């Protein structure tokens, strides 16, 4: 035996001996028996103090620091943007859709514009800069999207559009940035409204181009497959048949996979449903929303108070894992579940991140 092997053996023996013989708990075969619920797994419940609470204090501090940093970034970004903000939006009172400026006969009906604006306001990340034509930007402003996040496109504005995160493509915008902008730099349709010349597409902008995006997406799909396989193997996570099919089609947003995995470290999680890839986004759009039934480690459904505690834990998570929306809802049958939703667009490379 080499000196290293000897040191290793002695170190391991010393570490192991920190567990005294009397520390072995009695075998609990009956207490561990699982419940036969389709939504729940059970498991041994440890008595004593909830050890996981130990991380709450540092996490709360981290969350506060992150919130302060994020707030200062948003404020500085807002101030910088205000100086360049187009005069058309600055100080302009909000007007109803039918009174808004229209660029020409090909522009979509106001109702379609309002639908698209409402969707962007509710579903697109609050940090995303949105490029749009004037009429659409006005509708977005009216829907509650901060004006500092709006970038009004001008003719020949393709370079300008590349600085945004999301582009709302109308016929007017296609005229401004070129008909092939979408195929070249915004290959992902997040949502689509209306049809024909009046169609509005909300697309994610990929400034490195569609080819680079496809390459990153291929890496991501591989990572998503591995993560999904791990998740389906996890005895603390159960999934409904429909959710399993969606998982196995690698369609679930990576942030959601990580959040489910995270919640399973605290309790048992049953995925009731996935959803919300955006209207008109097609079957390949990532699913950014999930209904999650939570069971305690002993296998009984979480009470409302316990669910609130899980919700609070979920809300402690940091960007980019923090959900845009996390709330408790009642599903048919009366059970209360956790509803978690992430904003569009789905960032790539989350699962390959090694931080």
């Amino acid at each position, binding site marked *: 035996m080499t000196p290293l092997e000897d040191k290793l053996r002695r*170190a*391991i023996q010393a570490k192991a001996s920190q567990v005294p*013989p009397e520390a*072995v*708990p009695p075998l609990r075969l009956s207490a561990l028996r699982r419940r036969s619920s389709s939504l729940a797994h059970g498991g041994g419940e440890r008595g004593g103090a909830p*050890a996981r609470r130990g*991380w709450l204090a540092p996490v709360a501090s981290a969350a506060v620091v992150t919130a302060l940093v994020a707030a200062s970034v948003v404020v500085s970004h807002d101030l910088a943007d205000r100086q360049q903000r187009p005069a058309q939006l600055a100080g302009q009172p909000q007007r109803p859709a039918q009174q808004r400026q229209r660029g020409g006969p090909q522009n979509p009906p106001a109702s379609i514009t309002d639908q698209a604006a409402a969707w962007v306001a509710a579903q697109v990340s609050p940090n995303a800069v949105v490029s749009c034509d004037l009429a659409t930007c006005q509708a977005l402003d009216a829907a509650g999207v901060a004006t500092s996040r709006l970038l009004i496109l001008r003719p020949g504005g393709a370079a300008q559009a590349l600085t945004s995160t999301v582009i709302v493509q109308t016929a007017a915008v296609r005229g401004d940035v070129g008909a092939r902008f979408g195929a070249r730099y915004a290959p992902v349709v997040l949502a689509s409204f209306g049809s024909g010349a009046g169609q509005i597409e909300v697309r994610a902008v990929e400034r490195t181009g569609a080819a680079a995006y496809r390459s990153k997406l291929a890496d991501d799909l591989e990572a998503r497959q591995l993560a999904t396989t791990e998740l389906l193997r996890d005895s603390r996570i159960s999934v409904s048949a429909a959710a399993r099919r969606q998982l196995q089609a690698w369609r679930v947003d990576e942030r959601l996979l990580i959040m489910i995995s995270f919640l399973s470290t605290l309790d048992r999680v049953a995925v009731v449903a996935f959803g919300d890839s955006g209207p008109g986004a097609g079957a390949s759009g990532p699913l950014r929303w999930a209904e999650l039934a939570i069971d305690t480690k002993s296998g009984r459904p979480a009470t409302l108070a316990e669910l609130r505690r899980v919700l609070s834990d979920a809300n402690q998570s*940091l960007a980019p894992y923090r959900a845009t929306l996390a709330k408790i809802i009642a599903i048919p049958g009366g059970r209360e579940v956790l509803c978690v939703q992430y904003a569009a667009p789905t960032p790539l490379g989350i699962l390959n991140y090694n931080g």
Partner: protein
Amino acid sequence: VKLPEAAGARSAARESAEDAVAALYEANALSLIRMAYVVLDDRHGAEDVVQEAFYGLYRRWGRLKDADNAIYYVRAAVLNGCRSALRHRAVRRRVLADRPDQRPAASAEAMVIKSEEREEVIRALARLPHRQREAVVLRFYLDLSDEQIARVMNIRQSTVRSTVARALDALGRDLKETL
């Protein structure tokens, strides 16, 4: 007439499984909890992993072809449970930007140089990839042979040898400055 007999047989089989698993637990629980503790550095977590492993064995007892395989099954289940617990811990850290577990304050004994050295070895062990760490613990804590480690980890004996060699190499490099 058949039903009570069948029920009686099932009950007898369950009792027999419970007795067998309980006997195996009594003989091996401490060493397995200690092994899981070395891997996880978390005593409650180690106890949970071992309980789950024995419960899994109990559930599969009727399907075991050979009762001698039981200990291999349970060792593999403990390692799988440790891997899962470490994965969960990594997810928690990632999502919450959680800090690594605080180590207990140094005791008088820990101030002794030998203890410091041992702690450094354990920390280096924790930095090894999961598979290497498992092979090292099976070899140097449970004193298993290459063949036994191969059965527990479901890999070839040659892979066991190369994994342990790579682990020792990495530990040697890692500890060079401190040992």
